[in-house]
């Protein structure tokens, strides 16, 4: 079984570019309905299928995402 992972999204730094969403093989991420203080919709987790692969964090231009994975 794949290892379990999790991500922390600093929503106030997010610019809503959506590049993380397309890069996630597990479809963990989606856009919020609300906006942050900058006025951008931001990335949110919508399921717990994260494997900690870090794809989303690697393509995020704004270094919004931190990734954790069980050891």
């Amino acid at each position, binding site marked *: 079984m794949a290892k*379990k*992972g*999790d991500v*922390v999204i600093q929503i106030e*730094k997010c*610019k*809503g*570019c*959506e*590049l993380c969403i*397309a*890069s996630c093989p597990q479809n963990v991420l989606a856009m919020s309905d609300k906006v942050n203080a900058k006025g*951008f919709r931001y990335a949110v987790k919508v399921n*717990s299928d994260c494997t*900690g692969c*870090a*794809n989303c*964090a*690697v*393509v*995020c*231009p*704004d*270094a919004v*995402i*931190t*990734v*954790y*994975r*069980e*050891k």
Partner: protein
Amino acid sequence: MAENLIKPENLVYEKSKSMTERELHYCPGCGHGTAHRMLAEAIDDLDIQGETIGIAPVGCSVLAYYYFDVDMLEAAHGRAPAVATGIKRVLPEKYVFTYQGDGDLAAIGTAETIHACNRGENILIVFINNGIYGMTGGQMAPTTLENMKSTTSPRGRDIKTMGNPLKISELVAELPGTYYATRHSVHTPANARKTKRAFKKALEYQKENKGTCLVEVVSNCPSNWKMTPAESNKWMEENMFPFYPLGDIKTPK
């Protein structure tokens, strides 16, 4: 209940230590941010943060000195390779890089680019090619593709009257002083990781004093291309990559 994985011992990926905490000013989805991050991660991996000096350009990345947590200098438009030359010659044990857009490196700075490479200065030139002048509002650059629209080629670049797009990486690869020239992108996780490996290679070559290394990153400009970030990356794959193919252009013999 799923166990909480968010604890320090499980951390596998975070923002590079060679970047400051400052938020980037780039437009949403702009490749500049990811290119900065990959270069900063290469510096982390080689553990050379304290020995690296960067030169920022004029262009959207003019404020790169706010974002890299290494010693940084700002050069006049296009002159980064000349400034880098001076710094590297005075401090040859340091790792010196320039970070430049296509307007900076391939238009106003063409002379500095070519002569630094021809002299074989032991520097890394990072070249962000988005085919346009981003900062000033999307004017045509030497790298603008045939038929590509810009504010100064509103009906598309016409080769007859506006000349050919310039493949400056292939051009400098012909020069004897150029040691390594390679072209990448940062729009997917796999591509971004490859770009980081190219930065690492280029910085490692600097230790051997073999000559100039140039890493081109074909990038997007969603704002001036007037597309969403996802659309701009698709457009880049379909239009930029055929003319600016990814891969090594010159590798050490």
